[in-house]
């Protein structure tokens, strides 16, 4: 087990280097960041030259990357053109996004698995069909539509929950964006759970559990659900990363100053350091989440052993 984890951690190094380099190249391909900084006006050549020198923009791209990575390992993510350090941006944005992700993930797990279980146990009946239709609708509608509609109905028209999130991030204000962010993944989790539950209800060990005279709730939770969750956990693990990075649209709609929002600003202003810094952290989260899923696999299914 220890050796397996070590091997997986070592494997992360080339993946980490590859992804960050790709991001680095792609952000530079967007165009000249100094020109973008000045917008339509032509920059003063002296100022432009100074900025170029300060941000190593005259070096070849690979050297820029090497210099950037060198600083990165000293926890120096560089500064934006406006002089703000990326580290402070990270410190401001990540806690907000983490809270939002936690809310969304909880909703996704509880309602996704709950609805999936309900519908898998009652396959072909009304409850099952309603869940199938509902999840299909949720999957088909883009997030920004559900986002704006819910914001208008729940937040503005009925006034049940706050419509936007201010600087003071409360749990209540994150509830609505959490639902919006979770909705699509929730639908996938529900469908995935439904399929595996429906499949496993016919399994021999479930029949054995019934023959042992166990109460129904014990048969369902201890025997049926435990086995059905293995593929669901895989999905949830990869989705955790996607929720953190993919909250861009939701954070825009609800004015949440989190990762997605800051990243968006960084792309618009072609702030290389912001974009690369944020994505680097996202890459690390993705890799760790995947490792966690693989380790969780072995906990859930004793037939899988890592050596």
């Amino acid at each position, binding site marked *: 087990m220890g050796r397996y984890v070590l091997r997986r951690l070592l494997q992360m190094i080339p993946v980490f280097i590859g992804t960050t380099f790709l991001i680095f190249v792609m952000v530079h391909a967007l165009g000249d960041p100094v020109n973008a900084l000045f917008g339509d006006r032509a920059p003063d050549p002296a100022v432009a030259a100074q900025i170029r020198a300060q941000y190593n923009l005259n070096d070849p791209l690979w050297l820029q990357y090497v210099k950037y990575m060198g600083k990165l390992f000293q926890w120096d993510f560089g500064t934006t053109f406006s002089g703000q350090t990326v580290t402070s941006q990270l410190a401001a944005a990540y806690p907000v996004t983490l809270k939002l992700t936690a809310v969304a993930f909880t909703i996704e797990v509880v309602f996704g698995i709950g609805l999936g279980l309900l519908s898998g146990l009652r396959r072909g009946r009304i409850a099952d069909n309603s869940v199938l239709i509902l999840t299909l609708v949720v999957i088909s509608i883009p997030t920004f539509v559900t986002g704006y509609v819910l914001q208008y109905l729940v937040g503005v028209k009925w006034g049940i929950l706050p419509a936007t999130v201010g600087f003071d991030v409360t749990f209540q204000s994150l509830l609505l964006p959490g639902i919006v962010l979770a909705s699509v993944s929730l639908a996938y989790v529900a469908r995935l759970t439904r399929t595996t539950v429906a499949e496993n209800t016919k399994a021999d060990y479930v029949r054995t559990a019934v*023959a042992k005279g166990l109460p129904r709730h014990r048969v369902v939770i201890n025997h049926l659900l435990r086995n059905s969750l293995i593929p669901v956990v895989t999905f949830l693990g990869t989705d955790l990363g996607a929720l953190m990075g993919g909250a861009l649209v939701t954070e825009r709609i609800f004015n949440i100053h989190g990762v997605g929002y800051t990243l968006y600003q960084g792309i618009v202003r072609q702030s290389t350091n912001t974009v690369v810094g944020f994505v680097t952290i996202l890459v690390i989260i993705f890799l760790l989440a995947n490792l966690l899923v693989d380790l969780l696999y072995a906990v859930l299914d004793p*037939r899988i052993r890592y050596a």
Partner: protein
Amino acid sequence: MSSSSTSAQPREATADTVESPLLEVRDLHVEFRTRDGVAKAVNGVNYSVRAGETLAILGESGSGKSVTAQAVMGILDSPPGFVTGGQIVFKGRDLLTLGKEDRRKVRGSQMAMIFQDALSSLNPVHSVGSQLGEMYRVHKGSSRQDAKAKAIELMDRVRIPAAKARVGDYPHQFSGGMRQRIMIAMALALEPDLIIADEPTTALDVTVQAQVMDLLAELQGEYHMGLILITHDLGVVADVADKIAVMYAGRIVETAPVHELYAKPAHPYTRGLLDSIPRLDQKGQELYAIKGLPPNLLRIPPGCAFNPRCPRAQEICRTTVPPLFEVTDEAGTPRPGRASACHFWKETLDD
């Protein structure tokens, strides 16, 4: 052989004092309502088992032997399966009239079932210790430690070596024979009055089959349990069963004490089954097989269900369903426990 004679001893002693059987299935009907129509899987089955007695139920796949057992246990997949008639009287109570919760309490504690494929029938993600201990935790409310101690005790009983060290192992870490022992241990856990073993040795190789069968017979004798042994393996039956019921298309077509059935079958189907056993002294000859296929349960042939495959079929077989005739010897005295659902049982017997 030795195990059957030892287990028969206490039965003889108590046979007079026990007037009502442990389990009596009366005119049981089960059907499966599928998209293609109604499949009549069990059509009026009667049988009974006394404490300490072994009843073997013999038949091809799809003859309704497993479905009958599932109906007795109350684990029929419903829908599509429905019990549409009959009674299942267990220790004086008709199980079919019991509520769901009462029925559940009977399962596992008073009657238990051993399944064919132990690998798929045991939960892959729970240790065998926790699966065995679950019986005590649920039915007796035992604590975790007590349940584990009992699980180790059970594993010792079914002679799993190093039970204490292996109690935390998972089903896939055991061999086929050991897994089936765990199934047996699980069934025995609460010392039930009746055990239903649904082809307990089919998935095992021959040497292990004998060990598992012996163990089952020995434990049955020890606890004085009734045992219903469902099988299509005539060799397994001969050693351990007291009486045999042969099923075909959801009906019992012949019942007999075990040795009489082997010596003189009274139904052409039983005869066919016995003739299908490959024999060493007839090496080189073509193997015998009953011609044709088991009937489609959606369209059971009129008359005797076996008539399209029967070498002895006459006009009457195609029109009239034969009742279970009492089988008598030449002098006309009835043979105890013998019956045959064949219009020509006498001729078959004389063959």
